[in-house]
């Protein structure tokens, strides 16, 4: 399960931001997570809980913003929702595409009291 490694990366980023900005522990952080990525939200949450357990960061609420997949079809030029990696273009049925969205994985912001 790679989610723990991912949560660990998030934990380190939040810690860096707190110390670089000399601010108190945020009450929440928001992560943008594309739905084409193989990241299980619950495992990622659990990983963050484990990583922050026993530290000042354990009170942080983790908000996950799900980003829907979207692609640009190279065959017909239209764009279309890509709920799965195997979703064809809804206009022409082609799989020839550029992925426009759905692979985001960003720490968007933190909320301070």
């Amino acid at each position, binding site marked *: 399960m*790679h989610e723990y490694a*991912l949560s660990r*990366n998030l934990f380190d980023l939040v810690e860096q931001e707190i110390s670089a900005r000399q601010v108190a522990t945020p009450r929440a952080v928001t992560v943008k997570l594309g739905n*084409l990525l193989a990241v299980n939200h619950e495992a990622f949450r659990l990983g963050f809980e484990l990583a922050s357990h026993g530290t000042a960061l354990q009170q942080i609420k983790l908000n996950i913003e799900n980003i829907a997949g979207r692609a640009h079809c190279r065959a017909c030029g239209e764009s279309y929702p890509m709920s*799965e990696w*195997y979703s064809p273009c809804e206009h022409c049925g082609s799989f020839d595409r550029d992925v426009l969205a759905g692979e985001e*994985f960003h*720490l*968007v912001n933190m909320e301070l009291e």
Partner: protein
Amino acid sequence: MCGTCGCDERKPESHAGKPAYVKIDLNRRVLERNVNYAEQNRRALQGGNRICINILSSPGSGKTSLLEKTLELSAEKNHIGVIEGDQYTDNDAQRLKKYGVEALQINTGKNCHLDAHSIHHALEDTRLQTCSLIFVENVGNLICPAMFDLGETKRVALLSVTEGEDKPLKYPEVFAHADLLLISKMDLLPYVPFDLDICIENALKINSCLKIIKLSTLNGEGLNEWLGWLDQLQVPVCA
């Protein structure tokens, strides 16, 4: 819930016009550290005219066997190096050292993938300094390694005919970001109900640009094509 800021306070008037918290925009990639190391690796490889191939598959699809065969068939081996990723043991590195090449073993312990940081150190290792073609055998796992860019030149996925033709649909990320798919253990095709055409169709649904080679290390099918694919990567990249 409060409509002003999302806090648990139900009466917006209690805020007296100012929000109870501030939002600080960060917009940093969660895998920033890995992305940075991957970029460094890519630059170092390009600068040294070196090529690095990241090989991904489930355990047992034939990654080490393919490397053994590749080394066996390579007339010139001095320039080849291997980085072996496994959770435990240095068995695979030992298997490859027999062919007279440098093979570094990275044990990831509880981790299920290699990351760009571990590759960064391996590339700096003096034993790999003279190698211009470096194979990375990633930890056998069809999910976890896919998200970790190592800074590799090309990514190769292996899928053996005993694993089922639906795997590209079930574990799409590995296939979505691969440059080449090797369908391995083709010698076993007569013995398993594996629909090769459907497998290829599935893989192309995930990644229509995927190049596909069918091969067997046992009967030699596809090995020339694989060596040819490697050769065309090694065209000198001088400007």
